[in-house]
């Protein structure tokens, strides 16, 4: 099975990108050529050069260094949102699927409410209510994201609810909670996990979108969405201030997507 992963060039590319990003994030202070927060008004809006490979921004900060440090923020948001939303969604989905009846209905209606709520309005409102900060964007996105896992896990649970090994556990007198924890959840977590790994990229994309409209990262934070937002005014003359953050977002999301796809193929070779 592992060999299969290694054979797929796209998955390898995804893995490579993600690993590079993680390395950049961990070793940022040593890899980045300059301090990402160092203001230098005399050097503002310089085009890419040997000194500043990606040029400088509107207050003279080195864009390359900012992009490198930005990996930390993006990864943090991506992982944290998923780590918060995933357990909540999974547990709720498992309970809903296994318990059935009224409990199922209530949980699914609540899930539907959050799913039908226009995503951007929900995240904007929460971020506006709590105040602009990257932490609040995290919270806002987690609230928008958990319903997806609930749905997926619930369908999985429904399909194995009446299967043999669950029946036998029941026959042996195991309590519902025990069954949930020992039998159901481990067997249904698969599809949801794949979704989660794919979601990492989308969370980063959404966070960048929220920062773009001013709700997330605050100055002087080197978050890519915020960098894109600042570049809008001087776009015409300083193309580098928009191009590189945009490419950073694109590559990051692409990397996680490729990796997620590869994982999905691993577990479901029929769809390769």
């Amino acid at each position, binding site marked *: 099975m592992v060999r299969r992963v290694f054979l797929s060039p796209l998955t390898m590319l995804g893995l490579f990108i993600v690993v590079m990003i993680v390395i950049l994030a961990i070793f940022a202070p040593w890899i980045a050529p300059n301090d990402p927060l160092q203001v230098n008004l005399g050097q503002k809006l310089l085009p890419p050069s040997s000194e500043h490979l990606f040029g400088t921004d509107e207050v003279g900060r080195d864009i390359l260094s900012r992009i490198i440090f930005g990996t930390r923020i993006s990864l943090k948001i991506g992982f944290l949102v998923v780590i918060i939303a995933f357990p909540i969604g999974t547990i709720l989905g498992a309970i809903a699927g296994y318990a059935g009846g009224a409990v199922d209905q209530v949980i699914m209606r609540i899930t539907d409410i959050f799913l039908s*709520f226009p995503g951007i309005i929900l995240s904007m409102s929460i971020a506006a*209510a709590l105040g602009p900060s990257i932490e609040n964007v995290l919270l806002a996105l987690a609230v928008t994201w958990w319903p997806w896992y609930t749905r997926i896990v619930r369908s999985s649970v429904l399909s194995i609810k009446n299967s043999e090994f669950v029946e036998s556990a029941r026959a042996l007198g195991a309590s519902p909670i025990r069954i949930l924890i020992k039998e159901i959840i481990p067997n249904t977590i698969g599809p949801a996990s794949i979704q989660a790994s794919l979601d990492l990229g989308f969370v980063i994309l959404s966070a960048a979108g929220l920062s773009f409209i001013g709700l997330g990262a605050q100055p002087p934070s080197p978050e890519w969405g915020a960098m894109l937002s600042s570049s809008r005014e001087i776009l015409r003359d300083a193309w580098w201030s928009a191009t590189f953050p945009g490419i950073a977002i694109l590559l990051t999301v692409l990397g996680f997507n490729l990796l997620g796809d590869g994982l999905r193929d691993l577990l479901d070779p029929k769809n390769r």
Partner: protein
Amino acid sequence: MDALRYIIKRILLMIPILFGISVLTFFISNTIPGDPARLAAGPHADAKIIEELQEKMGLNDPLYVQYGRYMKNLVQGDLGTSNYSHQPVMEDIKQYFPATLELTLFSMFITILIGIPLGVISASKKDKLADQFARVMALIGVAMPAFWLGIIFLLFFYLQLGILPGSGRLDTGLAPPESITGMYTIDALLTGNWAVFNSAIIHLILPGITQAAVTIGMITRMTRSSMLEVLNSDYIRTAFAKGGSQNRVLYGHALRNGMMPILTLLGMTFGHSLGGSVLVESVFSWPGLGRYAVNAITYLDFPAVMAVTILIAVLFITVNLLIDILYQVVDPRLNYD
């Protein structure tokens, strides 16, 4: 009969969901720091004027009273008056919604036109160069920050080449057509106004493609995986063996059978686009619902926020319901769950 019961059950279920959404929206809106009265009164107003305004706007009543008042009006079809524009919210929506609808329809059109064939080709030429290429393009499309793409398109097509416009729905000198649906293209066609039709279509292109970039990626992937499943089935192998032309088998039988997940996804992206076009609308100065909603949240225009949220939710649920109904009708073997 089962089908009818199912449909009615789903429609009835919409009610608690919408109720829940309205409560959630109301609650969140009211926790956003900011006082609509102070905003309306302006920066020079003193405390007394603000107090009087708060009273007039009913802001001093307990939340559940305010909520009750709003819902009572809502079920009678009164969406309230916008704190920001002083117009009935319904009027605002009549102006902004068609713009988003038009853009979404256009981008869906492009998506279907490009995404489905790409997915089919990709599946039928699995693992060959065309497939790899299509898959990478789809992946890039899905990973692309739409606002960034929009900016790049602007720079290239508007500034450099000058062949496409940079903002708005119409050329500056033109007046919108007589409002029937609110969608300039359709209204222009209906009134035979070719100049406006032309201009409207041209203005739709860049924002439409930008919005479609993401959805094309998703549809291509879904079409590909759905087609792959179907293509491996006995039924299709038989069709090929019986000597059907490749096109006919692909587009006739296979696609038809693989259509459902694709339709589901299309429905979801349609519903999602209606509410999610904020960034594209911003970059292209498109006067749509997304921008209206962002403005409403920013300016604490609660009636507008509530109205937009409920509207989009209703549309989203309805579209999904229609898709699900189609699903059951087409394939009654599936469970009603």
